[in-house]
């Protein structure tokens, strides 16, 4: 059984997409759940919050060598990634970063980046404002959920049935 991608690779590629789309450097686009100190200054976190599987999986059969058949079981999955932006550093506000990320898919650079990373952007949420009070001062925060669609393909090689001999015997004398 082989899968055509691993979850860690998708997570990493989504972080790369967020870095390109928001204009933040890759070092400050971090996994949303790692046990490590937060970066200084403005940063973003990316966390897979759920996977939606809509519908049944399908099988695609392809004839292979040595009387076998490759059966590819294809399942379409939607990945919802919560992207949160923290702290404005005088320059871009967190809302600007989130809006820029939302529209990035339609720009030529964004289309190319999605193709490079093997991602399919399928939808997006509103930009939510989640300002928090930290040490009696407001910290600017904004979040947006991006939905990516991927096909999960599980390929199996099975023996083919070339022909089935059938002997027909008619019994007349009961």
């Amino acid at each position, binding site marked *: 059984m082989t899968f055509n991608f691993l979850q860690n690779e998708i997570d990493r590629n989504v972080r790369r997409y967020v870095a390109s789309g928001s204009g933040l450097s*890759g070092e400050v686009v971090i996994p949303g759940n790692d*046990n*490590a100190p937060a*970066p200084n200054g403005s940063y973003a976190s990316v966390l897979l919050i759920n996977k939606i599987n809509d519908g049944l999986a399908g099988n695609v059969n392809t004839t292979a060598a040595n009387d076998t058949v490759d059966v590819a079981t294809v399942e379409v999955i939607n990945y919802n990634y919560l992207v949160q932006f923290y702290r404005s550093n005088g320059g871009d506000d967190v809302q600007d970063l989130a809006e820029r990320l939302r529209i990035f898919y339609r720009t030529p650079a964004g289309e190319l980046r999605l193709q490079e990373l093997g991602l399919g952007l399928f939808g997006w949420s509103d930009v939510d404002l989640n300002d928090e009070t930290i040490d009696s001062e407001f910290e600017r925060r904004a979040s947006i959920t991006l939905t990516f669609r991927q096909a999960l393909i599980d390929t199996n090689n099975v023996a083919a049935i070339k022909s089935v001999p059938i002997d027909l015997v008619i019994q007349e004398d009961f």
Partner: protein
Amino acid sequence: MSSCFPHTGIITQRRGGTRNSDGEYIQATPVQFNIQMSFQPLNGIERNNLPEGQRKSDTNKVYFQKPGDLSPLQIGTNSATADTLTFNGIVYLFLQTQNWEICAKFMKAAVIRQNNQDDV
């Protein structure tokens, strides 16, 4: 002086972790210090002063002389950044510190066991 500090421990400090271009955290190389110390259980008042959730935990105190190049101890419960003390193969995180170096030439610190609280 060594008779006051009969136990041997290792303090591990991690400073200056970085992130790679994919935003993944890379821990800094740990720096270790061998220390002579006195390792004791907390008394009742000290245990009562702990946050509520930690009173039932395996918490202890250590008295030791600070090595010259030891950075200020970083306390906390985040094992990626907090300094740790290893004693008898068990890892403890530093919870509280008191520096009595100026008047009494020692430091006092409270430590909490990092893993396997139920083990004896």
